[in-house]
């Protein structure tokens, strides 16, 4: 699954990044590296973009870019873990 499949307030652990070029590099540098936890905070009124929290800050990206980030869903949600 990818970040785009998360529901609001659900989290996942990043497995890897697909895609190439600018957007991939940018996502990596923003901290979307493997084994990092990412949470979908909310979705904009018209369904795009998505607001995520990762590494203790908030970033908003497009749904189509969120589809590049392969994640593993976390079953037992524990909000106090990284």
């Amino acid at each position, binding site marked *: 699954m990818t970040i785009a499949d998360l529901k609001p307030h659900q989290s996942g652990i990043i497995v890897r*990044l697909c895609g190439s070029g*600018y*957007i*991939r*590099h*940018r*996502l*990596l*540098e*923003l*901290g979307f*590296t*493997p084994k*990092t936890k990412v949470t979908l*905070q*909310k979705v*904009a*009124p*018209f*369904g*795009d*973009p998505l*607001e995520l*929290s990762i*590494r*203790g*800050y*908030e*970033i*908003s*990206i*497009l749904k189509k*870019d969120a589809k590049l980030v392969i994640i593993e869903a976390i079953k037992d949600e524990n*909000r*106090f873990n990284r």
Partner: protein
Amino acid sequence: MKIALIGNQNCGKTTLFNQLTGSNQHVGNFPGVTIESKVGYIYKDKKLELVDLPGIYSLSPYSKEEVITRDFLIEENPDVILNIIDATNLERNLYLTLQLQETGIPLVVALNMMDELEKSHLSLNLAHLKEFLKVPIIPISALKKEGLKELVDQVKSVQKKLPICYYYDNSKLSSFIAESKNLIATDNKESKINDLFIITQVLEGNLDIADKYGISQDTIDKLNKLKSKIEQSYNLDCEAVVVDYRYQLIEKIINSCLKRETFETEEQRRSRKIDRFFTNRYLAFPILFLILGLVFYLSFGVIGNTLSTIFEQMIASFISFIDVTFFYDVNMILRSLIIDGVLNGIGSVLIFIPTILVLFLFLSLLEDSGYMARIAFIVDKPMRFFGLSGKSFVPLLLGFGCSVPAVMATRTFNSDRERRMTIFLVPFMSCSAKLPIYAVLTAAFFGNKAPFVMMFLYGLGIVVALMFSLIVKVLFKSVPPPFVLELPSYRFPSLKSTGMLMKERCKDFLKKAFSIIFLATIVVWFLQSFDLRLNYVTDSSVSLMAMMAKSISPFFQPLGFNQWEIISALITGLIAKETVLSTLQILLGSIDTIHQLLGPLEVMSLLVFILLYMPCVAAFAAIKRELHSTFDAILHMLLQTSIAWLCSFLFYVIGGLLI
């Protein structure tokens, strides 16, 4: 000593810059770096030159700002980098710090928002952090002016070369990089930049640095060989390896230095609560329209109008005072120049200072509080329909204030297409300089319906801009631009920064009023007071100005207005839009005379033309600078004027049929 101030966006960089340099700043221009950066002297000490570079996340050259900052470091050889980081968002901020460390330029870290840490339920072990980073770290609060003196002392006493740090651990990547250590050293000897920085840049695929640095193809080939070796060894592309390596280091640092008591900081929790309304599915847009409506209503209606009226009376009595006191029984030409030309001309423009300041105040409050980013977030999807993104919204909104800062605000864009489009559309957003023209003309013709006519004009500008963008999107089937946007926590804007911005705008405006507009009023006065043989004429319809205007009047015939007075006003409006009004004032003697020239329909057609035709020279200069091409800028102007003509024509023809 040249000090480069570098940091992420929203980490208090501008606040720190303002606190350190006070009002003591100017716009610096650096050869080779095609941007104006703010430069100031720390505590008025001419030896400490602080350069405010754009807010960035990394040194990879993906946005214009990152290129600027990176090239500044390479080409301008700053003595020290002052890196400001947000203590409440350490993890991501440290990424840039690590990259800056790779450059080998001496680094001092200002750890900002230390006072927020406790409130955020975070505790930081500063000693551990210093040990890891091996650079001086000074805790500060830019907003409360805490720790600034220590920071400046540290910057002054920083050592020449940084001890090279973290790439010399035991990791696989480090040993690979150690292998290539000597590759670059032979190529360049003079530079202060560390080889390590060049190596990691090439490994990350940023090959443009090789050109800038004059690195031989041979070296690049060797580095590329290293790159494929690393990729094989990690079974991952090199970009990801390098980035991941930095983040692993950061995680190590964070785990040993930072204790989180809760998952989110106090600020974030507060922001989330506010956002439950502001970005709510149903409430977001009503709230947006309410806020923007309020901003425009307050600045153009209540506050701006009241202040302007008071100001207007003051100016009028000042002018008549001068007239009576000094020009009783003086040479008629001189009196005509000073009173009718200069004073009335400038006066008609100065009246609008309060309105413009209030508008800028609100726009900067929206920006500093963090709401601007939310606007971009919620409008992104609808903007995409028109081939734009949420990011374009902010410059377009600023365009209602002034095109110059609005055009400059497009620098954060990483899509060139969107950037160009936004720059083109900004002038359609009716800037505050046009407001006086609308205000006076609509009041003269439409009485108490004037506010609706003004609203119509503002709306028309938006509609024309969106339609144009949509047409281009459909015609060229353009790909939507990428979009990455940080949503900072809501913050109370700093009064000092806002105050300084106001002061700056006021200064800009006054400078404009007393330079360009002053000059324009004299030129206009001259052109309308003298004829071809340079005789002083009392009837300005035989003046130079009238001749010029009459020669292009057929062009305006289809639009319903071809009087030379009006065309002259449009021409002088190119100097600054306010001048349209001051010229009409001079040429007609009194604005009310315009009733003899135009009817309501013609005035509407004129207003539409004024709304859309090419922007003033200041905006032209800004557009030219941002596009890096005089030709493109002129093309923009021609296209805008054509669109203005077309809209005005359609309006006049269709309006004529309906009435």
